[in-house]
């Protein structure tokens, strides 16, 4: 195989036509000579005509060959398989796995460092004629993160392990799609991963049977040579009661999952750390849980982490948390709450999460049948409307709501509606799926742009609506009475947490703000946010209402002008702690028609030899010049052979 550094110069080979033309012209531009002894000449010509023609042909061939060789030498012939730098313009898609598992140490270096180092070898030999795109295996949905040689190098150099699971199939599909758009170049996909088994699946359940995916695309995979360890981790923390009540002590459930053959017999120590202080310590067995007790906290955001002794991967030995501790809510009931609601309120009061008081002193009114609704809203109270159990009372209810200028009304479907269930998933454990019998239908009667449906039934009808008045006072409209006849909710274990959230959260602040994320997440900042403090302590200015991409595990704080506006924690999904390696065939199944090549070695030269398979060959003009010179000697000899020295007659 031969290529050219300057293919355009190869067109000079057209000059090979010159000797041919000259040859033809010269045959026509001969002079005429009168010569009597032409018969001897004819005999000589006949005798050696073949040799003459052969010499002419050889001369012509030699001259044509000389011009062709000169043109080839000038065009920069590329022979054989060149070095990695000597490749044709290539579209290179790099998929890099920076999932949490790549924080494992191999000697004194992280796997991610090895992956990046190997990927940078490819970047080093990329040329300005290449196109490079980097795809994150952890966030494949983001598409190409860098689309230039320089940009790719900078991105890779700054890459850190992310709190997420790699989705290699999705990432290589993204890369393959990008390569498919690069039709004017050679294509190559390079994948750098620790080949963790959990990274080999996608969200759709398995490899597709679609034909032609990645057909002919060379895929170079580099996997560091390491042994996956058994690994213990800290699972998602779960306070006994959430949201936390300020001033109340609570237990925190700390799962201790184990990924490996047999968990160690000795328990591990679990520490709850807030700031720099260890606030709770407990012991737990891997495969089970620990239950440290969190001391009473002041109201506000509580951030810290749970930590175990080192086991396997260090990154998952620590799990960050952010909880909101709120003071007990003062609530008043207007009308008869009924047995179950009454019990729930009493339980919450006993638990210190609620203070039952008279209506004038309360923050939240629980208005049975909308009693006192108009008054409550007009005085700035948050009002929870619990409908009556009988539909006969609906006209009075709707009348009160109309007077309070709430753009909703309750309607009864009669006996025909039947029962429904609360739609899954629900923000309160155990609430989703509970049956609601003959629910009322909440129908909007006017514009309610700020009203939101917090819960729906499985038939799509609203079950819990939160709205605000023009003055900004909140109201909650419940879709059915809290009686055992109206639904399973009052008799379920979810009743108390539901009422707790209803009174303590939704009636006051609208919704439980998500504060603990698993995997990289885009977080929308509060309107008054000005700055965000990242896990490494660095600060970055943000605009209120903008989206912030969080990728690093740790605690984040969003600051406003003079207070903390929001806080959240980011951890990798617990599945990421399973370090078991997958197999080559599992991954190849996702691009079955690609040309896969696997490498586990540490030799950089071996890697350079593998990558950029569309090589152009080594620049080799010298042999052509040598051959040219040799042929020029042959040509001179052939030409001289036809010019013999004259001999004297006789």
């Amino acid at each position, binding site marked *: 195989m031969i290529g050219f550094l300057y293919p355009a110069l190869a067109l000079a080979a057209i000059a090979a036509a010159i000797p041919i033309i000259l040859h033809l012209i010269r045959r026509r531009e*001969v002079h005429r000579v009168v010569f*009597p*002894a032409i*018969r001897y000449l004819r*005999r*000589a010509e006949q005798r050696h005509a073949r040799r003459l023609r052969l010499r002419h042909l050889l001369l012509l061939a030699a001259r044509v060959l000389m011009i062709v060789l000169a043109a080839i030498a000038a065009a920069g012939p590329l022979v054989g398989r060149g070095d990695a730098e000597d490749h044709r313009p290539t579209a290179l898609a790099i998929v890099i796995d920076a999932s949490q598992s790549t924080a494992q140490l191999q000697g004194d270096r992280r796997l991610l460092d090895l992956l990046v180092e190997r990927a940078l070898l490819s970047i080093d030999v990329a040329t300005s004629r290449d196109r490079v795109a980097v795809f994150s295996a952890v966030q494949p949905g983001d598409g190409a993160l860098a689309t230039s040689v320089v940009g790719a190098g900078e991105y890779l150099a700054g890459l850190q392990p992310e709190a997420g699971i790699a989705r290699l199939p999705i990432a290589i599909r993204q890369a393959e799609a990008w390569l498919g758009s690069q039709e004017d170049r050679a294509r190559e996909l390079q994948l750098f991963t620790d080949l963790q088994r959990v990274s080999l699946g996608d969200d759709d359940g398995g490899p597709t049977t679609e034909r032609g995916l990645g057909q002919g695309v060379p895929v170079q995979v580099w996997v560091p040579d390491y042994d996956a360890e058994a690994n213990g981790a800290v699972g998602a923390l779960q306070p006994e009661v959430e949201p936390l009540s300020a001033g109340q002590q609570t237990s925190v459930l700390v799962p201790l999952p184990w990924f490996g053959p047999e968990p160690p017999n000795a328990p591990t120590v679990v520490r709850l750390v807030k700031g720099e202080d260890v606030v709770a310590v407990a012991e737990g067995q891997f495969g089970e849980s620990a239950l440290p007790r969190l001391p009473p906290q002041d109201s506000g955001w509580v951030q810290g982490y749970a930590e175990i002794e080192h086991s396997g991967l260090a990154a998952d030995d620590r799990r960050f948390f952010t909880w909101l501790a709120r003071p007990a809510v003062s609530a008043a009931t207007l009308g008869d709450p009924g047995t179950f609601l009454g019990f729930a309120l009493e339980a919450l009061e006993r638990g210190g999460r609620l203070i039952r008081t008279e209506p004038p002193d309360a923050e939240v009114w629980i208005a049975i049948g909308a009693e006192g609704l108009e008054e409550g809203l007009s005085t700035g109270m948050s009002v929870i409307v619990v409908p009556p159990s009988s539909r006969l009372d609906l006209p009075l209810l709707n009348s009160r709501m109309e007077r309070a200028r709430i753009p909703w009304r309750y309607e009864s479907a009669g006996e025909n509606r039947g029962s429904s269930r609360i739609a899954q998933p629900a923000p309160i454990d155990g609430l989703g799926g509970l049956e609601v019998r003959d629910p009322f239908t909440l129908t909007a009667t006017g514009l309610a742009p700020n009203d939101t449906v917090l819960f729906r039934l499985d038939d799509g009808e609203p079950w819990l609506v939160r709205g605000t008045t023009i003055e900004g006072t909140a109201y909650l409209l419940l879709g059915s009475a809290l009686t055992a006849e109206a639904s399973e909710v009052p008799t379920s274990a979810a009743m108390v947490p539901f009422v707790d959230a209803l009174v303590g959260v939704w009636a006051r602040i609208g919704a439980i703000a998500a504060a603990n994320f698993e995997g990289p997440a885009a977080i929308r900042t509060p309107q008054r946010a000005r700055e965000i403090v990242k896990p490494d302590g660095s600060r970055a200015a943000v605009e209120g209402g903008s989206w912030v991409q969080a990728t690093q595990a740790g605690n984040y704080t969003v600051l406003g002008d003079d207070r903390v506006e929001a806080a959240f924690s980011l951890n990798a999904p617990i599945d990421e702690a399973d370090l078991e390696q997958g197999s080559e065939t599992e991954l190849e199944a996702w691009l079955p028609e690609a040309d896969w090549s696997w490498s586990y070695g540490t030799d950089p030269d071996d890697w350079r030899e593998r990558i950029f398979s569309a090589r152009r060959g080594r620049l080799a003009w010298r042999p052509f010049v040598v051959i040219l010179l040799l042929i020029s000697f042959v040509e001179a000899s052939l030409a001289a052979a036809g010019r*013999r020295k004259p001999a004297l007659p*006789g």
Partner: protein
Amino acid sequence: MNTRIRSRPDLLDPAELDALGGLELVARAVVKGFISGLHSSPSRGFSVEFAEHRAYRPGDDLRYVDWKMYGRSDRYYLKQYEEETNLAAHVCLDISGSMDWRSRESGLLTKLDYAKRVAASLTLLLIRQGDLAGLVFFAEKVMRRTPARGTEEHWAELVRQLAAQGPGQLSAAEGALDEVAASKRKKGLVILISDLLVDEAATRRSLEKLRHRGHEVLVFHILDPGELELPGAGDAVFVDPETSDELAARSAELRGEYREAVAAALDEWKRACGAQRIDYHPISTDQPLALCLGEYLHTRMRLG
């Protein structure tokens, strides 16, 4: 020019010799110079009046062997007699187009001019020796024919004919030779002066016919130096002046093969003539005329 050359015009370069004057003067000077160079008379042959014996040499006519001497000495001797009879010689001169050519303008005669000088000199020498000389001009046919006579006036007429005769077109030597053979019953000498660019087979057959009729034949093959060695170096189209045939060739590349072809042709003529006991002499036009006279004399002596 050294003294010997100065006194021997027959040894001069033919082109230089031409400066002496017309054809007649040149021929006379050549013959005079040639004769003066001979040490003894050439007119010793086979005659009625016995002169001496000499040893037999292969090729000698057995009729003249002295058998009595053989009986006495057991050796062959031939009896030699004083010259007695005149020999009729016919010079057949090729005047075809190919003869009117020379390879360079200066320092060379055309083959025809050279041949004319040879013919004039030979006929003068013949007549001076008491022989008869006739002349036949031929090209594609016999163009002119003059019977053989032995007077100086006749020779002067021959010279005038030679001077006046221009070149013809094609060569057909066989016609001239056949005509001589048919018209001369008495054995004589036929001298063919030609570049032999003729129908070779037919010409050889005619020469053979002459020999069968008892004529002695002497062939002067006139060659220009440029025919012995191919001139020029580049591509050229060579044109035959007689037939206008053309041949494109590169001289430099064909020179060796051409030289071999010429050598083969000369060798073939020599072989064919030798087979018929014909004296064959290739002569280059840059060679002195004395060579031709010498060859003739050798033949004449053999004839006796």
